[in-house]
């Protein structure tokens, strides 16, 4: 069956047809769709785990039990799951285990642009890196056999461009892979020093065996031409840009297996051309390896370690070197400058009312990872920090421990429901256990929002949308040691302010659960849009402080866009002149 697939759907098909029995993941752009597509198959176990570490360990357990398993995460998710990864490298697998990790060069939807290939090198596990959906399918499918043959987890590296680009893929049939028997193997699976010391040499031997796959296997290939003036070593989407510029005019060594890297293949390629370039996004992993072989090569000197490339990046760099890289495309002429259009919180977003309250009261806000990070931008400018999943709560504890009474009464942590499940709970335990008078606001919109509406343990539904066990956030916070726990509706500005001021004034740690479902959820019905009565509007711009995309200001008066407004009523509560209202206003 030939089909146009985004890279992530291709990975899902590859894993499924490769005999996958279990997938456990935590959502994260650009990796989310791998697991979403797998969950459409009813003959496998698919799940959203509370975080990437749990997900990888679930995949480990299934592998131990003899089943082919996988987990998927974004690059920063692999930081969370790094602990199991490094020791999984020692234990190896029973059923094949594939770890899909998606990097985000240019940070379309991330807080950093780290290069996951470092993990493959550091954990000493093989990594495959496809350049398009067709390769993503083939590599994902073959990764299970590679994993089992070499007794190792396999990393499959995606990046935003490949994960979210479509091309035609020929999807085959699902392989029938019987479960392997479970046999107790303490010296393989109990990683205490005595056993682990015996595993480490096996890991080093494995790398050398895998190098033969790198030399002769299906993942790395040379595309030779008659022109030998220079050759390019490249991988992933950089390969596509190189081909876009040079077509078949320049010799290319395409790397599909960035760890372990071949030696002979590279030496032979280098010997066949007069000059060597390495073109890779992010860090100089290939380049440093080539240099370690004592070869002369040009890489990061021309091609930045920052952001994404394109055919233009490659073309411009070679033209600057005086190399013919084809004609420079001509534009039609000068273009008028236009204002930027950064992403923002949606009209009717339940986070807005709480943020307005915090800004109004000049509260210091330690933020977290999710849609609500968008509260950082003008006009709200509500946040003081955003580091990583869970750091709002762990961070406020340290912040208040450092400054004591000076900050305790005017600082809060804000964290979403899914992020709280991911890694907020342990921070909250620390607040209670090591006793700082910290105030935590859980922005509970009953869904994992930013990544496109995934269920989580607080929503009461599983990945398939079936009813599931639901975490009782109030009871949980109390059980973790917080006595003051209260719930507030963020559409009610008065109640928000009362809750925030009272909990900040309290002499002990507290949690405010700001609860209202995401306005984009299908079951949330929008109310009739509100209107501005131009006769009553004095043009004071107070409603503009909310930064709601539905409210704009034209000809001295506020105006509400009826196609965007969901009638949340927050701006109505702010208006001192009763100029905003429903039909009757």
């Amino acid at each position, binding site marked *: 069956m030939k089909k146009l697939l985004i890279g992530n759907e291709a990975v899902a098909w590859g894993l499924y047809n490769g005999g996958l029995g279990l997938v456990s993941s935590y959502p994260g*752009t650009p990796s989310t769709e791998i697991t979403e597509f797998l969950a459409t198959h009813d003959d496998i176990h698919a799940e959203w785990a509370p975080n990437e570490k749990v997900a990888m360990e679930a995949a480990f357990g299934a592998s131990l039990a003899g089943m082919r398993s996988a987990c998927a995460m974004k690059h920063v998710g692999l930081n969370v799951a790094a602990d199991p990864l490094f020791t999984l490298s020692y234990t190896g697998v029973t059923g094949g285990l594939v770890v899909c990790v998606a990097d985000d060069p240019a940070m379309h939807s991330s807080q950093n642009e780290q290069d996951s290939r470092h993990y493959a090198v550091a954990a000493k596990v093989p990594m495959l890196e496809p350049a398009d959906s067709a390769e993503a399918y083939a590599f994902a499918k073959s990764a299970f056999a590679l994993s089992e043959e070499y007794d190792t987890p396999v990393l499959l590296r995606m990046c935003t461009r490949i994960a979210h680009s479509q091309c035609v893929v020929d999807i085959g049939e699902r392989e029938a892979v019987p479960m392997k028997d479970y046999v107790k193997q303490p010296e393989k699976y109990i990683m205490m020093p005595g056993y682990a010391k015996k595993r480490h040499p096996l890991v080093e031997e494995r790398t050398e065996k895998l190098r033969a796959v790198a030399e002769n296997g299906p993942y790395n290939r040379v595309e030779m031409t008659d022109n030998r003036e220079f050759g390019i070593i490249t991988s992933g989407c950089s390969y596509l840009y190189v081909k876009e510029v040079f077509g078949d005019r320049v010799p290319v060594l395409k790397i599909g297996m960035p760890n372990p890297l071949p030696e002979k293949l590279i030496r032979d390629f280098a010997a066949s051309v007069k000059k060597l370039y390495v073109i890779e996004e992010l860090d100089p992993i290939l380049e440093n390896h080539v240099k370690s072989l004592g070869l002369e090569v040009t890489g990061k000197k021309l091609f930045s370690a920052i952001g994404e490339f394109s055919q233009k990046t490659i073309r411009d760099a070679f033209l600057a070197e005086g190399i013919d890289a084809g004609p*420079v495309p*001509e534009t039609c002429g*000068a273009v008028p400058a236009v204002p930027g259009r950064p992403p923002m919180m949606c009209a009717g977003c339940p986070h807005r009312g709480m943020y307005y309250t915090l800004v109004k009261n000049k509260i210091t806000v330690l933020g977290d990872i999710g849609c609500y990070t968008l509260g950082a931008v003008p006009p709200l400018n509500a946040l003081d920090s955003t580091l990583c999943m869970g750091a709002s709560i762990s961070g406020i504890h340290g912040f208040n421990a450092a400054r004591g009474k000076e900050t305790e009464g005017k600082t809060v942590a804000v964290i979403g429901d899914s992020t709280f499940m991911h890694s907020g709970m342990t921070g909250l335990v620390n607040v209670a256990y090591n006793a700082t008078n910290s105030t935590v606001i859980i922005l509970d919109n009953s869904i994992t929002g*930013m990544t496109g509406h995934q269920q989580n343990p607080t929503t009461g539904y599983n990945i398939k949308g079936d009813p599931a066990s639901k975490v009782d956030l109030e009871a949980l916070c109390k059980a973790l040691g917080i006595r003051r726990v209260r719930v507030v509706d963020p559409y009610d500005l008065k109640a928000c302010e009362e809750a925030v001021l009272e909990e900040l004034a309290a002499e002990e740690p507290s949690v405010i659960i700001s609860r209202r479902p995401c306005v984009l959820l299908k079951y949330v019905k929008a109310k009739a849009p509100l209107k501005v009565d131009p006769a009553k509007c004095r043009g004071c711009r107070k409603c503009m402080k909310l930064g709601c995309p539905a409210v704009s200001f034209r000809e001295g008066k506020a105006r509400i866009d009826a196609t965007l407004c969901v009638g949340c009523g927050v701006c109505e509560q702010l208006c001192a002149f009763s100029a905003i209202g429903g039909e009757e206003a």
Partner: protein
Amino acid sequence: MKTTSVMIVGVGGQGSLLASRLLGTLLTDEGYDVKVSEVHGMSQRGGSVVTYVRYGEKVYSPIVTEGECDYIISFEKLEAARYASCLRKGGKIIVNTQEIDPMPVIIGAAAYPEGILEELKAAGYDVADFDALTPAVEAGSAKAVNIVLMGYFAGCLGLPREKWEKALEKVIKPKFLEMNRKAFALGWEAV
């Protein structure tokens, strides 16, 4: 054959993803090698979004850069200007004249630029502008702007209308098919 490049640009939430999937499906069925590049995640939240569709005999890069684009379909007026530098000489921009204020305009830090399409035309850009919102509402939903625009654009490719209708059936859920057929027809007829 030369690779043809199309960019679909607009504001997150306007449905550029569906439009690009419609075009991608149509071109794949025509037997072309096709690459489509989408935007997911944070940028979708009301930000400026761009989707690339490229087709031909063999397509490598999934993205389009300066001076390379044959057609830009802009779902919003000022977004047309934002991406116009990608248009090649002889390329064409199709623009929905709908204005959606970006945050700098909403908060009063900038004004919505006046006369940008006129400026583009004066600079030598081939701009076809029309109001896609009114026909979308007529078809049944302001959200159908994407399909109205694809109907308007369809004529540029020279493929028969039945093939587009077939692609519509493939990518649109049965529940919304009738409305989108109407939206497509209104766009097609607006040329």
